[in-house]
Structures are given as structure tokens and as C-alpha cells.
């Protein structure tokens, strides 16, 4: 079930049990690979691959659909905008004195699918990796402890800050703050009545927190241990190897022109 403040879905699966570092590497690698191709077909294949990984991670398609729909917006944008800039390829029709070519449409599709691919990879990684493990993974790669703790503490406070925002909005409403009527501009100005106390309250909490952290030994020693253990095992090593190979192949493809629609474009 999803944990309130993040999109992490708690399940048992082969993807969940991978070390967060291999998943993070996969994420970065996938971004790079997406940029290597600009024909829609290989990108679509990769996207389907990512969705299958999601399936292996016991993520139901239902939960992925909102994100797919969000990214489809970019696909539509791509198909409508890019053709006006691309002149190569067989002509399809003419609109507003501009020539629309097949290559133009395909390129636009590829650009949109690229965003889709990057987004869905990030979503699948975040849904199969708990924020805690992610944090420990990042810290083992080299993220400073203070930053890591700051990030995870920030996440812990999201539901609290949200409930404070609701309370503050109610409190100010009883003093006559009307956020329903008025132009967008005046509403923004009125929102100061909520943002003001919220910022101050958040600041207070942060101050309290830094005192509490000092009281409990934060910074007393050079390093930190963690009750969350992560281990790189054989499967993780295969993942690293696999992605490195794919990147290699991708570079090869880019150089030879396979899977590339328009060699002069990114």
C-alpha cells in the first residue's frame, strides 16, 4: 500500500529487493540511453521494457496509469510542435503554409516518448525503493550525512506541514479570509495569510529539530550506522553490467546510425 508522503508501494518482489544503488544507476543509465536514440521505435521498446519491470515489481498498471497519462501530454505536444521544425523526409500534407513530413511526426513522437520513458523509469524506481533505503543508498555513494538526514526529515514533516496548512487556512477563514472569490492575483495576495504563519511554524519546527538532533548525538562521530542494511549482491552486479552493455550498444548505434531517425539532431 502506498505510504502517505511518497509514491513508494510496499511489496515483496525481485525488483524491491535489489540494492537501491543498482536501481539508481539504472535510472541514470536509462536517461542517457533515452538521449542516444531519436527514433520512436527503440524508445517505445525501452518504455515497454520499463513497464514490464514494473510488472515484475508487483506494481499494478492501475497505479502507473496516472503517470502514463501525464507523460502522454508531452507525446501529444511533441507530435504537434516538432513537425513545424523538421523538413526532412516524405511529405504528408501542408498546413498553414508549412510542410509536414513523416519524419517530422515520427521525431516529435520520439521526443514525447523520451519524456515518457524518463518519467516512467523514475516512477518505477521510486515505487520499488523505500525512501529510507534510497537515502542510505545515496549516502553510501557519497551524499553527506547531514544532507541525507535533512532530506529524510523533510519527508517526515510533509504530512505535518500539510495538516498545519489546513488548520491555518481554517483559522484564517474564520477571520474572514476568502480564498474562493476574486481574481487569481488577489487570491495569491490573500494566500499570504496562510503562507505567513505556515513559514513561521515550519521555521520553529526546524529550530526545535536541530536542538533535538544535537541532544541525540548528531555529529558526535565521523560516521553513522544504519538499521537499514543494503547489500550489493550478484543480481545487482548483473544489473550494472547489463546497463553498461546497453549504453555501449547505444553509443555504437548512434555512431552507425541504427535507431536514429535524424542523425543531426540529439
Amino acid at each position, binding site marked *: 500500500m502506498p505510504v502517505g508522503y511518497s509514491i513508494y508501494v510496499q511489496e515483496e518482489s525481485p525488483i524491491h529487493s535489489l540494492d537501491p544503488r543498482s536501481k539508481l544507476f539504472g535510472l541514470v543509465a536509462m536517461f542517457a540511453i533515452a538521449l542516444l536514440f531519436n527514433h520512436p521505435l527503440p524508445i517505445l521498446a525501452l518504455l515497454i521494457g520499463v513497464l514490464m519491470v514494473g510488472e515484475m515489481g508487483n506494481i499494478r498498471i492501475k497505479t502507473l496509469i496516472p503517470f502514463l497519462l501525464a507523460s502522454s501530454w508531452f507525446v501529444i505536444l511533441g507530435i504537434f510542435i516538432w513537425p513545424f521544425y523538421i523538413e526532412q523526409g516524405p511529405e504528408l500534407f501542408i498546413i498553414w503554409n508549412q510542410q509536414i513530413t513523416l519524419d517530422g511526426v515520427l521525431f516529435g513522437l520520439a521526443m514525447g516518448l523520451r519524456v515518457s520513458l524518463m518519467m516512467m523509469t523514475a516512477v518505477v524506481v521510486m515505487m520499488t525503493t523505500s525512501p529510507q533505503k534510497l537515502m542510505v543508498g545515496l549516502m553510501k555513494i557519497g551524499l553527506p550525512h547531514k544532507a541525507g538526514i535533512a532530506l529524510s526529515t523533510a519527508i517526515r514533516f510533509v504530512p505535518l506541514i500539510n495538516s498545519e496548512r489546513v488548520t491555518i487556512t481554517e483559522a484564517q477563514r474564520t477571520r474572514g479570509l476568502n480564498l474562493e472569490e476574486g481574481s487569481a492575483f488577489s487570491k495569491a495576495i490573500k494566500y499570504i495569510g496562510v503562507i505567513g504563519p505556515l513559514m513561521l511554524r515550519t521555521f520553529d519546527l526546524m529550530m526545535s529539530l536541530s536542538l533535538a538532533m544535537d541532544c541525540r*548525538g548528531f555529529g558526535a562521530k565521523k560516521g553513522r550506522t544504519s*538499521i537499514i542494511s543494503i547489500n550489493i549482491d550478484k543480481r545487482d552486479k548483473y544489473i550494472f553490467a547489463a546497463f553498461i552493455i546497453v549504453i555501449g550498444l547505444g553509443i555504437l548505434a548512434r555512431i552507425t546510425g541504427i535507431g536514429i531517425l535524424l542523425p543531426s539532431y540529439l
Partner: protein
Amino acid sequence: MSGNDYLVDIENLKFKYTSSEELVLKEIDFKVNKGEFVGIIGPSGAGKTTLCSIIKGLIPHTINGKIKGKVDVIGKDMKVTPPAKNAAKVGMVMQDPEGQIIGLTVKEDLAFGPENLEWDPDRILERIPEVLDMVRLSGREERESFSLSGGQKQRLAIADALMMDPELLILDEPTSELDPLGREEVFDTIKRLKEEKDITVIVVEQTVENLVNVCDRIIVLNEGEIIADNNTRDLFKQQVELMEDISGKVSLPQILEVTDKLAKEGYISKEMITPFEKKGIENLKSVLKEGGSYNEQ
């Protein structure tokens, strides 16, 4: 070298914040023995939180200020020891239940302190159930910290401090943001600590009624000075002016105010002044039984 091994040894302490000229603590002499349960009471602004922060080392290291005098806590000079360095020996629980919970779940929050001290993860996981039992939150390791009630959050804060098995535990107004049920939960926990653990405790509180059942000794702070320091039973009996000085400023047990007034007006003997409800009822019953006569001690 003095043979006295005080856990807290404060002499001639003077303190002011850097931004002002006024002394917040004027001349504090305060010593605590191992195993004592000391209560600190006094009106807002008397310097109670400041004193606690100095004992823990938050002042002057995390909060700025100028300290003069001796501040030795468990053998360390706190003027030069940052609070993180004595986290294993001195635990502190503060007023705001929200501002002390760091972990997303109860388990993670409890692990935070020991993780900072580079404890072995297995040792941490072993200790967690012990500590949760102490504060009556057993079985809630996986609960999200956000979902706990106020009283539960404060008990978690106490558990956080207990994780590192400290010698001294300081609680600065732990119940002022809680409802009566939460307040009772926290005080029951403190009482249990007294009965079951070998630990020294300093508690700052506004409602003296709860404090008297748990503390053997109470000090009264007013305007930066300690105006009274005695065991609970005798504190209010021996210093007549004390009641007048603090009566409107601190919430004293009602039985104390009643017995004090009756004694002052000569209706009962001074010996009968008490902050304890049961004792007070006993005393008053004996007075009313005998038809009002009493013997001078």
C-alpha cells in the same frame, strides 16, 4: 579534590544572552546526586529552560550566550563540551511533541540517536523493544510517527532518550502541550522510571500537583535565582514567605494552598501543611474529628 561525586555540579552560574545586557541566570548553585528525582518549578521566564539547556550543553554550543561559573555534568565541563558529545550520558526531552520526532516510523526515530553514536545495528534493534516496553508503546515499531497522539509522541521522545541508557534524563515541561490523559501517561512513565531504573531525573513542570508524587526534591526558580531548594515534604512548610512569593505565579496543588492558609490563620498546625492529596485529607480528617483542637508540636 572533593570526595563528592555529584552528577550535576553547578556553582556560581551566571548567564546572559549575547544580544542583551540582562542576566537571565543570576547566581545559581545547584547540585544533583546520583539517583535523585528533582523537580524545577517557577513562573515563565524564570530561567528554567535556560538552566536545562545549559546542563545539556545546548547553551552555549547550539544556542549562543555568555556563561560564567562551574558547570560540571557527569565529570565533563559543559561550557566546552558540545551536547552531541554527551548524548550517551545525558538525555533531554523538550516541550514540543512534534519538534523532537525525527524518524518516519517509531523504529527509525528510536534508532536515530544510537546510529549517530555508530552503534552496531543489531544492538540497536535489540534495544528497541526494551525501551518501548518502558514507555508502554510495545509493538508499535512500524507505526508512522505522524499518527501518534500527543502523549504517545512525548513518550516516544522519552524512549528516544532512554535508547542510549543515559545516567541523567532532563525533561523540560514535557506535558505542557498535552491533554490530561497525555499528562498522566507521561507522569506514569516517569514514576515507572523511578521504580524500575537506576537513573537520575530532572523535571521542569508548571503543574506542581503531578510533580509532588514523583519528585523527592523540588527547587523553585524565580527571576533567575533559586529561591527554595528542599525535599518535597518540607519545602512549603519551612519557608513561610515562599508561598506568598510564588502563589500566583506557579500552579500549586490546591490542597497545599488550603492547608497553608488554614495554618497561617491558626486553624491547624504548621505540621499539617502538605502538597500531597492523601496526606492532606488524612490531616484534615484528624482535625475535624477532634473537633478542631490541636496540639502545638
